[in-house]
């Protein structure tokens, strides 16, 4: 049996019927990692001891004939910026090279309680800043579809591990596209949940008003199971919210939710309920600069849902072209504040200089990589005296306009379809020396983070060169179930 190709539900059934044990499964995956990861470099750390002990626990649950959760015994991977107690968490940075996490992130705690088997920690752009995983301080990850190309980023290790069959699913984080873009580049499914749907406790902070943890998986169903396991209110993250997904009506009284509760949010039963859907296609996402293969593949995907009976309507999101500069101003401003914690004193790399300023300058200067420094510098500049109004405040006002664009669109449509990225996976080295061209890789994904919406990347075809192309389906806040339901028609 090809254990590495099974879905979460198939594994669950196999374990319950005792066709294989969780330990066998874990060992099979560790073996695959041992063989394949030499070429792909998706993992920074293999947690084989942890995986084996968790698998044994799952087997014990099964042997007692207990009802086991869906994720129990299922081998998975965790991006190396999400804390696992007692395991190194490096964020792919020299400054945290030896850092051992003192506690579990809430998302990790939840999947541990479900009996998940953690195979290892996956590579990323340093502190999740990048779109190719080339900014890892240790090594770049390769795209399993073409080893000369990047897997996307920043959750490139998670996407590559799942695509190569080195994990059933993985946790990633998405601040401006870091789950969706690598999922698209590697041909897997990636969900960026609504801001607040998943606790950020234990996710190493990049930009706190944009960061969300989410799953990467081979099937939409697997992504949905994983999402349901990690979501929910957490008292350790005051921005997290509890949702009543059964009734599909967000239970919060906040304005954020009220504004969006005008249309019903049923889970579309694939195919039969697609008929009643209205899909918006924003004209601003099909402009000069988009690769013709990508455009053709996305247009075909749109045609497919139209043939199933959905109504397609062209919409306008007029401020789209300003999303990227607004995003980079806001994200880097938050970076400059969040990364002030790496001071060479509390934890991490420390250069013992003569005075305190020297410790700061040298620890940060030597410990942080070039892209991280560039973003700290940009954010510091944007927040500094004389520039705050011109840059930071202006960007936050543009954010309001972007939100209005989506509010108005969602009065008329159930979901919005766009490409995930203007191109398929690019060559390793192609964009790394030009930061601006790397930033442009995020052009279709950043709006969603600025507004806090959920979006899924689902593979819908291959380019002429055989590279995966992902469709982005954007939904209203807390309508993950709906966009995942729609995504299922592409499998």
């Amino acid at each position, binding site marked *: 049996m090809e254990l590495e190709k099974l879905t979460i539900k198939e594994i669950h059934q196999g374990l319950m019927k005792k066709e294989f044990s969780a330990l066998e499964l874990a060992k099979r995956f560790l073996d695959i990692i041992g063989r394949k990861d030499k070429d792909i470099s998706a993992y920074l750390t293999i947690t084989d001891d942890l995986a084996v002990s968790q698998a044994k626990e799952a087997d014990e649950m099964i042997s007692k004939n207990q009802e086991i959760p869906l994720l129990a015994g299922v081998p998975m991977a965790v991006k190396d910026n999400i804390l696992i107690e007692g395991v190194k968490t490096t964020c792919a940075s020299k400054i945290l090279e030896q*850092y*051992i996490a*003192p*506690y579990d992130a809430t998302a990790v705690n939840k999947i541990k309680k479900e009996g998940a088997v953690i195979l290892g920690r996956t590579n990323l752009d340093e502190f999740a800043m990048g779109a190719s995983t080339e900014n890892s301080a240790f090594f770049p990850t390769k795209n399993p579809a073409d080893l000369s190309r990047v897997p996307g980023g920043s959750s490139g290790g998670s996407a590559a591990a799942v695509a190569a069959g080195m994990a059933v699913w993985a946790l990633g984080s998405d601040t401006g596209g870091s789950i969706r873009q690598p999922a698209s580049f590697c041909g897997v499914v990636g969900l960026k949940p609504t*801001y*607040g749907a998943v606790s950020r406790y234990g996710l190493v902070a990049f930009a706190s*008003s944009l960061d969300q943890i989410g799953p990467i998986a081979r099937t939409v169903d697997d992504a949905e199971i994983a999402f349901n396991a990690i979501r929910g209110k957490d*008292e350790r993250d*005051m*921005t997290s919210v509890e949702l009543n997904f059964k009734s599909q009506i967000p239970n919060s009284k*906040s*304005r*954020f939710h009220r504004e969006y509760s005008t249309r019903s949010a049923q889970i579309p039963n694939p195919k039969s309920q697609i008929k009643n859907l209205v899909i918006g296609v924003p004209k601003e996402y099909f402009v000069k600069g988009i690769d013709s293969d990508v455009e053709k593949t996305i247009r075909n995907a749109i045609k497919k849902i139209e043939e199933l009976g959905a109504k397609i309507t062209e919409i306008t999101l007029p401020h789209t072209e*300003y999303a990227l*500069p607004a995003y*980079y*101003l806001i994200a880097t401003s938050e970076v*400059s504040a969040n990364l*002030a914690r790496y*001071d*060479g*004193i*509390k*934890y*991490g790399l*420390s250069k013992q200089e*003569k*005075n305190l*300023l020297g*410790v*700061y*300058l*040298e620890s*940060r*200067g*030597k410990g*942080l990589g070039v892209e991280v*420094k*560039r973003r*700290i*510098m*940009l954010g*510091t*500049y944007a927040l*500094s005296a004389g520039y705050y109004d011109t*840059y930071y405040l*202006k960007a*936050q*006002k*543009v*954010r*309001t*306009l972007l*939100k209005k664009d989506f509010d108005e669109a969602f009065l008329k449509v159930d979901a919005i379809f766009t490409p995930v990225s203007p191109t398929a996976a690019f060559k390793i080295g192609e964009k790394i020396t030009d*930061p*601006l061209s790397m*930033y442009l890789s995020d052009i279709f994904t950043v709006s969603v*983070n600025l*507004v*806090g919406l959920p979006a899924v990347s689902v593979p819908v075809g291959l380019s002429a060169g055989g590279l995966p192309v992902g469709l982005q389906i954007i939904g209203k806040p807390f309508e993950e179930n709906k966009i995942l339901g729609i995504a299922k028609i592409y499998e």
Partner: protein
Amino acid sequence: MIKKEEVKHIAKLARLGIDAKEQEKFQKDLSAILDYFESLKKVETEGIEPTFHPTERFLEKSAEKMREDKEKTAAPELAEKLIEAAPDKEKRHIKVRAVF
């Protein structure tokens, strides 16, 4: 183009030790990126309120959203682990260099 002096000033504000080569590189990179940001000037934002957070929950009835202001105790092992992580310490005290 932003001035090299400005790059040095920002690096100092951000407590980043960067060498001459990096100064030059950042001068070029930051200038190009800031030029790109200039496009925001085209957007009319007169009378538009900023959105600092996607949910804006903090702005409405914030007291209702926050947990009670009560001390919570964590496991004593956690405190030990946090202290353990400090690179320079004496017993349970974290050592810091003199300011000057």
